[in-house]
């Protein structure tokens, strides 16, 4: 897992991008936090969309 490349995920509603490598310290997510380690009830910090409505994207 630790060797897997970091991935990015995007909110379908507002376009917020979660980058595993950068994390989101303002949301309490340290750099390197994997998407799978974020709780299922987490919501998009910009618009409140549920985690299940994010898509993995290539940037």
């Amino acid at each position, binding site marked *: 897992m630790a060797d897997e490349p970091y991935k990015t995920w995007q909110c379908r509603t507002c376009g917020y991008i979660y980058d595993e490598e950068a994390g989101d310290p303002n949301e309490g997510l340290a750099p390197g936090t994997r998407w799978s380690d974020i709780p299922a009830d987490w919501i998009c910090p*910009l618009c*409140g*969309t549920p985690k299940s409505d994010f898509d993995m994207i290539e940037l």
Partner: protein
Amino acid sequence: MRISDEIARTIIDPYAYADGKRIDDAFAQLRRELPLGVAQPEGFDPFWVVTRHADILEVERQNDLFHNGDRSATLTTIEADRKVREMMGGSPHLVRSLVQMDNPDHMAYRRLTQGWFMPQNLRKLEDRIREIARGFIDRMAAQGDKCDFARDVAFLYPLHVVMEVIGVPESDEPRMLKLTQELFGSADPELNRSGSNDQGTEVGVDSIQSVVMDFMTYFNAMTEDRRANPRDDLASVIANGQIEGQPLGYLEAMSYYIIAATAGHDTTSSTTAGALWALAANPDQFAKVKANPALIPGLVEESIRWVTPVKHFMRTATADAEVGGQKIAKGDWMMLCYPSGNRDEAVFKDPFTFDVERSPNKHVAFGYGAHVCLGQHLGRMEMRILWEELLPRLQSVELDGEPRNMVANFVCGPKAVPIRFKMN
């Protein structure tokens, strides 16, 4: 639970928003004493006034429970509502854009342009937007040491970007700016079509309707052109878009253009003008961000919170509900007061201080939930690029007279920001 008549009159008064302090004081008092109460100013149906950040999020998050389209999506008088319904076959809306829609239409119509407004698609515009920004900054420098930053830069730069994105030729930009200011400045005698204060009256509705008709005439011609000759612009996406295999309805298509051609630049203009006003009034903040360009995204975010160009939207409860400890009944009308949410002491430390280092800065200026601003990434990008280009050249800036705000209670910001500056 009823808000005093004096406060109720203030929160609907376009001149209170132009004054700034009067509206801030009224909302601060409500947050302290009655954060979710009912206002019933003369001439209006009663409505809940939602002033707390948390309550605004709670309402916006539940877009099936709190609808945009069941009643007017903006604050309106009984007289104006009756007039609009007469004109529109019973509908409370003069236009039908994403703002007036609920699901399933809202989702279907939003999807049409959603991908276009995503950050990864906008990156292709970065170089062109930077070129446009440099052009306006060169023109500012050529003016010498004084200008009205609102009129000379802030109104024109986002206008040019958005019109190019839509596909409106540069020669038509003055017309689009005038129509936008007539629409959003409908309460401002200096900007509206009638030249008098007639907001909320039948005359005022006629005046707004005539502005809307001018927009529709223009964009109907553009639709026909883009159907015949599609290009790589937003107008072609709207003109050739389909919902469930059918072209967009006439009202919906025209409304799509109108919201893009008005809210798409006016909000960014207001925020940009308000940002420079704040920097000129707070030399320490100007020095900080000038010395450290890494603070520019913070400047952008703080200026969006500071100006909050969209002052409210209305929602209508589709069922009995509870928000912030208050019982909301089915059919109740609710005013989401974004400037108040963005000064909420429970969320923002020293909310009346302009702080480019504010972090976190989870303002509600773009809304929240399914209706969150579609153009937020474009707006942020335009402002970031402008400051990246302007700040290295701007050696000093100070106010050269009293800035003035537009008179409006829906979408507004500064209309004059006179400055004296030195540039290289």
